[in-house]
């Protein structure tokens, strides 16, 4: 864009312009860089420091030991179980949400027309209601004598199923909480599919499944992938669902980290666990993001 226009301009002016733009961009990024340096990077360094400190101590940066990691990788430690639960639930959340959100994302792009902005707002709004309020609403719905149980009894049935405080309801809560994080990247992704292309393929006799598999899905993939990644990563760190709805019937990995920090007062152990989770998540995120062109996603022309 700007570069192409400048290529025809006199050499010196072009270089001058580019030098100015370069410094302006970097200067604008500076406040963000400082904020994230202090507020994001520094805490991660602190966690790293604690992870190598003597267990059950607060000797950060004054002691060095691998004992915390040894404890975590010890076969008798059940922390790997929490990690498996979290990963499994995160994968299931991603799979379910992909199916739930796809028709809605498609509708927002193609079907809803003038109603699309309003429907988007209705899907965004729950993000502005604290997740524990929404999850507690589900407790009131599913609890004994709650909305579901009461309605079924009133209709003459023996009462609602006892789903509360089971692993299944935890998964339900995660699907519920993370829907917007799958829906909106997916909607942006589907917006990248030119409708003319789909129409052309149809005119040429392509079947619906063929169009979906060969045109829509590949072109929308960047958005779908971001949605899946975001959902997966956030679901790995989810705790509120397992605590409020699941009633601690399973312990997820973030909950293990919290337990180390609060009840057992073993900050170094909790930090070591947090470091492992962080490395896993950032590795995944950076790998996936390196494959994507954000300018195209967000609409740079």
């Amino acid at each position, binding site marked *: 864009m*700007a570069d192409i226009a400048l290529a025809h301009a006199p050499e010196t002016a072009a270089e001058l312009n*580019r030098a100015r*733009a*370069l*410094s*302006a*961009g*970097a200067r604008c*990024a*500076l*406040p*963000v860089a400082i904020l*994230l340096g202090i*507020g*994001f990077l520094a*805490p*991660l360094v*602190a*966690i790293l*420091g604690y992870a190598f400190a003597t267990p059950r101590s607060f000797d950060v*940066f004054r002691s060095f030991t691998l004992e915390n990691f040894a404890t975590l990788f010890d076969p008798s430690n059940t922390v790997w179980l929490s990690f498996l639960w979290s990963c499994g639930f995160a994968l299931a959340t991603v799979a379910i949400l992909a199916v739930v959100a796809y*028709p*809605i994302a*498609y*509708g927002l792009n193609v*079907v809803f027309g003038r109603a699309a902005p309003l429907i988007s707002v209705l*899907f965004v*709004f*729950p993000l*502005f*209601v*604290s997740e*524990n*309020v929404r999850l*507690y*609403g*589900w407790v*009131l719905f599913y609890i004994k*004598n709650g*909305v579901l149980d009461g*309605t079924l009894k*009133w209709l003459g049935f023996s009462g609602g199923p006892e789903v509360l405080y089971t692993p299944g309801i935890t998964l339900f809560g995660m699907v*519920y909480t993370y829907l917007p994080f799958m829906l909106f990247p997916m909607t942006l992704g589907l917006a990248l599919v030119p409708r003319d292309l789909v129409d052309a393929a149809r005119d040429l006799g392509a079947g619906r499944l063929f169009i979906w598999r060969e045109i829509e899905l590949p072109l929308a993939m960047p958005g779908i992938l971001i949605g899946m990644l*975001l959902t997966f*990563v956030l679901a790995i*760190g989810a*705790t*509120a669902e397992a605590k409020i709805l699941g009633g601690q019937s399973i312990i997820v990995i973030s909950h293990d980290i919290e337990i180390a*920090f609060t009840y057992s007062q073993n900050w170094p152990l*909790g*930090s070591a666990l947090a470091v492992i*989770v962080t490395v896993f*998540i950032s590795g995944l*995120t*950076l790998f996936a*993001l390196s494959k994507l062109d954000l300018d195209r996603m*967000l*609409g*740079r*022309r």
Partner: protein
Amino acid sequence: MAITHKRRDAAIWGWTLFVLVVIYLPIACGALASFNKSRYFGFPVKQYSTDWWSKTVDSIEIGMIVKTSILVALLVTVVSVVIATFGALAFARYDWKGRRLYQKLILLPIFFPQPVLGLAMLLGFNAVGIQTSWATAVFAHTVWIVPVVTLVIAIQVYGFDPSLEEAAFDLGCSRLQVLREVTLPLLWPGIWSGMLFAFLLSWSNFPLSLYTTGADSTIPEWLYAKMVAGYTPMVPALGTMATLGAAALLLAGGLIGLLVRRRAAA
């Protein structure tokens, strides 16, 4: 062809409306529980009353918590919108050497589990000896909200023609004048949405507040503490009030945005 389309569209509408009903169902359940006269929830509700609402409004403790929440959200809004506006210009407006890397790094806090981020910040504050309070919570919220708001504003920046800025420079405007007279008015809709996002995300944030507010407490924290131990119908009452407050703000913000755009267009 047209018939199959109609059927497909109806199915998509039906599915979307069903999902929306499911999404708002728990919020409605909370509202219902807050109007229940007896202390313990039972459905169908035997007797409705607004007692718990008035008790919630009269509570001095809750009043202080609401004030803390508003204070934190306001400060977060101001700080993060200023930082994120420049952040969005760097994200989408300028071509500079580190841009690709910067675009990815700025997303990392969003792609990071908030409970872990909150704990990490608690450790960080602890390591340098800062006592946690509402002020540290403002900082913690800002770290997570600035990237979100940067993205919201960046979408507006993509649709903005940089030659307008250059024309103003060529006509002799200073950097500050260009910012005030050209850049900010053009980006205003994005900045406005960014402000709404910042306030509402801070208002509803729980995982970061939990670890970084110290002895102070915000609304989501108070609700969680009471959910775990000591339920009273004041929990759904305050939850519903917070929800209605957010809805009113979003509605008012949307209307103001619309009016300003109409007036600018006229």
